[in-house]
């Protein structure tokens, strides 16, 4: 008994040491491959600081006038992306959740489809869409919708898989049809998670629309990209500040709504 206990402990210790060594080796190897060096990092910090202090500060308040429209575009893209994306995803999620799907094959197909959308970054979607539609908010909106659908289908499907089956059983026992069970037993359990995830997606979309905008999606991102190219750094810093304000305000409001719903 005692000997066995000791052996297990020794095994555990060997395991721990092996894992630590492996991680350390991985870190060193990656650092060498990427030429990551602590000294270069600090060296770069000085340059970065100089750039910010000399070129970016103080921000240009006059730039605000020209920023209103791009900021509104960013908001439009994010909101439309969230609303359209969450509606499409909600429908797809019913086919992607083990509890509600009509067939296993449908589940695998829908999940695979969502996974492809999700695993190609929004930036790449925007680049490809810009080829097809030219530069503008349409590209940004489409890229955001595609990327939203990819991640929301999975999130919603997981909500649907976690709902309380016994509540469904009770409604089924009354002689209800499948659509009735969906409407009266699944939906009430789905709504809170649906709202929470959709609002979180809105926050993410504001951030993502900036990035997507930089490659031709319009909005604040496009403005920032242009400003950088033309060395209008003080305008750019004003745009970055506005973007931060937008994100904080969105977070504040989505939190308020979330508290109300849940």
């Amino acid at each position: 008994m005692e000997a066995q206990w000791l052996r297990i402990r020794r095994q555990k210790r060997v395991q721990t040491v092996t894992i630590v060594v492996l991680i350390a080796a991985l870190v060193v190897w990656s650092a060498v491959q990427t030429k990551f060096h602590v000294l270069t990092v600090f060296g770069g910090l000085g340059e970065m600081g100089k750039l910010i202090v000399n070129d970016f500060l103080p921000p240009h308040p006059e730039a605000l006038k020209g920023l209103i429209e791009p900021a509104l575009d960013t908001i439009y893209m994010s909101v439309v992306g969230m609303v359209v994306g969450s509606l499409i995803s909600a429908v797809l999620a019913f086919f992607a959740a083990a509890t509600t799907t009509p067939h296993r094959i449908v589940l695998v197909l829908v999940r695979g489809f969502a996974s492809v959308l999700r695993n190609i970054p929004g930036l790449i979607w925007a680049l490809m869409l810009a080829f097809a539609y030219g530069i503008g908010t349409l590209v940004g909106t489409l890229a955001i919708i595609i990327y939203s659908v990819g991640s929301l289908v999975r999130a919603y499907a997981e909500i649907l898989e976690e709902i309380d089956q016994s509540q469904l059983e009770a409604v089924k026992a009354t002689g209800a049809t499948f659509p009735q069970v969906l409407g009266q037993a699944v939906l009430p359990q789905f709504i809170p998670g649906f709202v929470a995830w959709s609002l979180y997606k809105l926050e993410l979309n504001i951030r993502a629309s900036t990035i997507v905008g930089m490659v031709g999606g319009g909005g604040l991102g496009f403005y920032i990209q242009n400003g950088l190219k033309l060395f209008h750094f003080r305008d750019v810093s004003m745009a970055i500040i506005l973007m931060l304000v937008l994100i904080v305000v969105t977070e504040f409001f989505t939190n308020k709504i979330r508290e109300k719903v849940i």
Partner: protein
Amino acid sequence: MAAILQVERLSKKYSDGTAALSDVSFELEPGEFAAVIGLSGAGKSTLLRCINRLVEPTGGDVSFGGVRSAKASAHEVRLLRRQMGMIFQGYNLIQRVSVLRNVLHGRLGYVGPVRGALGLFSKQDVEEAKSILKRLGLEQQTYKRADELSGGQQQRVGIARALCQRPKLILADEPIASLDPVTAKIIMDNLHRICREDGIACIVNLHQVEVAKTYATRIIGMRKGKMVFDGRPEDLTDRMISHIYGESPDKE
């Protein structure tokens, strides 16, 4: 009187090989209040769920109101289900919606699929649901969310939902197993009174022999998926109780 429910050699074998129910047969007459007793895992829950086809039986047949369920279509199964109310150990109310809506779910089998899915119930149905809630002393709770209620109140809503189906039969699966003795008595009193007043037949799964003896007109004893006793409460001897609960000296 003609039996409303005939259970014939009903069996259920789960895919992992456990025989949850083997060859159970009995008939139930209108207005009977039958208690099914037995250990956990004796097949009581499976029996009830095979009757309303929440669980698909692997053998035997159930005939209810003259309709045989073994070969029934999905539509016919729903027609059978809407005439049988079911009450659960965990109450199984939709937690996030109002008490009234939960009771109205009892009408789902009677309204059109679209109206039902959207929850558009007729004024008449709403009035009936309200009067049922009143009958169970829950009129104060009508518009509260189900998850705001105590366990005993939730189970009364469960009874109200079953009643809203205007059932000929109520299947109650351990309705008091999660409740304290005082609340349990209130629930059993309500269930018993309503079934008697409305002439509804009832099958109740119970853990407690004493409770079964107090209310039931008939007791069915289950052991390892088989029916080992079927008779009047007075005929349930201590020896038989030990046999049902597996304490008999002649071990199997």
